[in-house]
């Protein structure tokens, strides 16, 4: 599964994208974030405040409860500020 990071989430995590093999026990986006935070201080920093984290699963807006089974791409980013 491909993970993508944008804007200050990318900056804090120190990584733009990566391919990972998620543990089979992870069911939703919240599970992915918990797992990432356990992998390193950079992720703990990027995901310190979940109120300002947004996500997309296979390029559609999701939330912490969105299931990740079968997904090929999950992206994490701050609230959007375009336009």
């Amino acid at each position, binding site marked *: 599964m491909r993970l993508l990071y944008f804007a*200050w989430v990318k900056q804090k995590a120190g990584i733009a994208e990566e391919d990972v093999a998620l543990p089979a026990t992870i069911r939703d986006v919240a599970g992915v974030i918990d797992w990432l935070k356990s992998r390193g201080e950079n992720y703990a920093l990027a995901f310190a405040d979940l109120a300002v984290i947004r996500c*997309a699963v296979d390029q559609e807006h999701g939330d912490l409860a969105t299931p990740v089974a079968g997904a090929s791409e999950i*992206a994490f980013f701050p609230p*959007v*500020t*375009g*336009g």
Partner: protein
Amino acid sequence: MIRVETQDFDIGAEVKALTAGRTDIGAVVTFSGLVRDMNDGAVASMELEHYPGMTEKELARIEAEAHRRWPLQASLIVHRVGKLLPGDNIVLVIAASAHREAAFEAASFLMDYLKTRAPFWKKEDRNGAAQWVDARESDGKAMKKWE
């Protein structure tokens, strides 16, 4: 139609392209957003980051929703990415309809949805320091009125 690109756009040329040869369009509303620097030189430049792939899909979803809600003859969303300077164009939205109410409402809707759902992020070079722009609470409220 939607486009994500680095180059500037010409509002007049885009409107002409949408309306050329048609006589069923009575009203065209355009919105263009520009890089602001309210504090006399504090903002030297701005960088627009986006999520390639999802951006195009999301803009297409937003445009399709506008056509579902209003009788539109034509529409266009153009969003620039990359480095921009104060006064530069950022975004262009056009809605064309038989009547002005639909054109005004659809253009306003397109912008409110784009502002809260299209995956773009602004980073300002403000007094020499790069700074991610915070989302405005008022944008979330503006979108809620269409629900």
